[in-house]
């Protein structure tokens, strides 16, 4: 099964933008996304252990909710670069159905072409994807987003 193109518009936008940039500018681009993400609110009370993603050097929190049958995510981190990376992840892959989300491949993450960002592996965008896929299967996390919206 493949994911309808229109659902990956945000992902494609990132890929295109990053493709045009050299390594140094990519680094600044991610910092910019991180800084912008810092301005969109993330519920304070979700920055707790229950929403913490383990295995990262900086703290990463991801919340999840089911809206009209699609999975919505929001992410937060205490480090700006990681905030940028997690924003790209939740921005790219929110709005998918369960099947579609399960279909997101590691190749697609590689397609973001952040290989040059040497921290990538440590930050673990792959791990973020796995974490989002795991969250989507949990029923008890589904209320987070709507609660956050209030």
């Amino acid at each position: 099964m493949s994911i309808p193109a229109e659902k990956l518009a945000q992902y494609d936008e990132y890929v295109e933008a990053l493709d045009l940039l050299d390594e140094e500018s990519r680094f600044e681009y991610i910092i910019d996304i991180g800084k912008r993400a810092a301005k969109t609110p993330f519920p304070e009370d979700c920055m707790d252990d229950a929403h913490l993603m383990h295995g990262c050097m900086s703290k990463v929190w991801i919340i999840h909710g089911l809206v009209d049958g699609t999975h919505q995510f929001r992410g937060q981190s205490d480090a700006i670069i990681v905030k940028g990376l997690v924003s790209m992840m939740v921005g790219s892959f929110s709005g998918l159905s369960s099947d579609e989300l399960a279909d997101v491949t590691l190749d697609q993450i590689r397609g973001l072409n952040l290989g040059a960002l040497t921290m990538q592996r440590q930050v673990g965008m792959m791990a973020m994807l796995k974490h989002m896929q795991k969250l989507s299967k949990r029923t008890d996390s589904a209320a987070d987003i709507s609660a956050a919206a209030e």
Partner: protein
Amino acid sequence: MNDISRTPKHHNLEAGFEVERIRQDFPILGREVHGKPLVYFDSGASAQKPRVVIDAMVEVMEDQYTNVHRGAHYLSQTLTDRYEGVRETIAKFINAGSESEIVITRNTTEAINLVAATYGRTFLSKGDGVVISAMEHHANIVPWQMLRDEIGIELKVAPIDDRGVLDLDAYADLLDQNTKFVSMTHCSNVLGTIVPAKDIVGLAHDRGIPVLLDGSQAIVHGAVDVQDLDADFYVFTGHKLYGPTAIGALYGKADLLAQMPPYQGGGDMIAKVTYEKTTYAEPPYRFEAGTPPIIEAIGLGAAIDYVSAIGMDAIQTHESALLAYGTERLGEMPDIKLFGTAPHKAAIFSFIQEGIHPFDTAAALDRAGIATRVGQHCAEPLMARLGVDGTVRASLAMYNTTAEIDVMIAALERARTLFR
């Protein structure tokens, strides 16, 4: 960066030591990272290797390789001699009384586990105290905790002050009747603090308590004399001493090693084996089961010869100058908070940049070609004591220069604008 007023300082610092010539010996230092010359400030995690180490290891594999201690043939005898020669080299390097007091291990971690498992299980029992410090690497915490869980020893932690200086009075107070062993770092991998090892040993010995010193960091920054320190055990790891990975050493006083049972069973560690009964070899072989890290040992031998030729005192003088310069430059930056300001310390800078996550700082340094470490540095309890989640650590070595410190300062200034 090319501030004229600083130029003479560079000159003075490096005159006589010829750091540029030393740098030529390390092939990797010629490479670039992200299009910038590599600034390697992560030697505390693992140091780079000089050409002589690389060559020695290649030469063994190309021309001399076989197993040691076993073969009745020319290659085996010559390589066994060379391998055993490394034991002598290590013994001389730390001034051990005899090469039979040197046990070859894979690293510091294995050496401490060996002592905890053999000395610990034999001589310690329920209720006995083992004293460590508040700035231990996990390698000197977890083996003792495992022993605690197994036989019920008690772990006691000697505190440090806010500069990272060990509180000697509090340490002495911990040496009560129950305390039966001290296992302490000689130099903190996070703060750089060099502890007063002789006093630590002396105070313990006054009460008949043996002491293990973790020399992983200390041994690279200055001369170590285990007899002068009177340490009962001294452990270190080869890869931080410009040698290869998977090779380290445990020094143990002969009379202690003689009383300790084997660590692992297998070949090389036995005197005689029948199905009914096996008798064990004498130390150090008793503790070296199986084929040893032969190639790595040759590499470590070459590394020790290399630093010895330069001179540990000369290395220490150079690194002290780097420490002083780096401390001054970082001190000029109002947003840098430095952890570890003990008067006696190695060239290790642990810091955070106020308002910026250490991970972001380290990423900005990486973009400038500067390799540092970020996080908890295998010392979580110490991080809790310092009240931080993590720090950036720049750990310098003999091949670093003041000009590289300037590169780091410039990159930190850039980070401030990037992340604010």
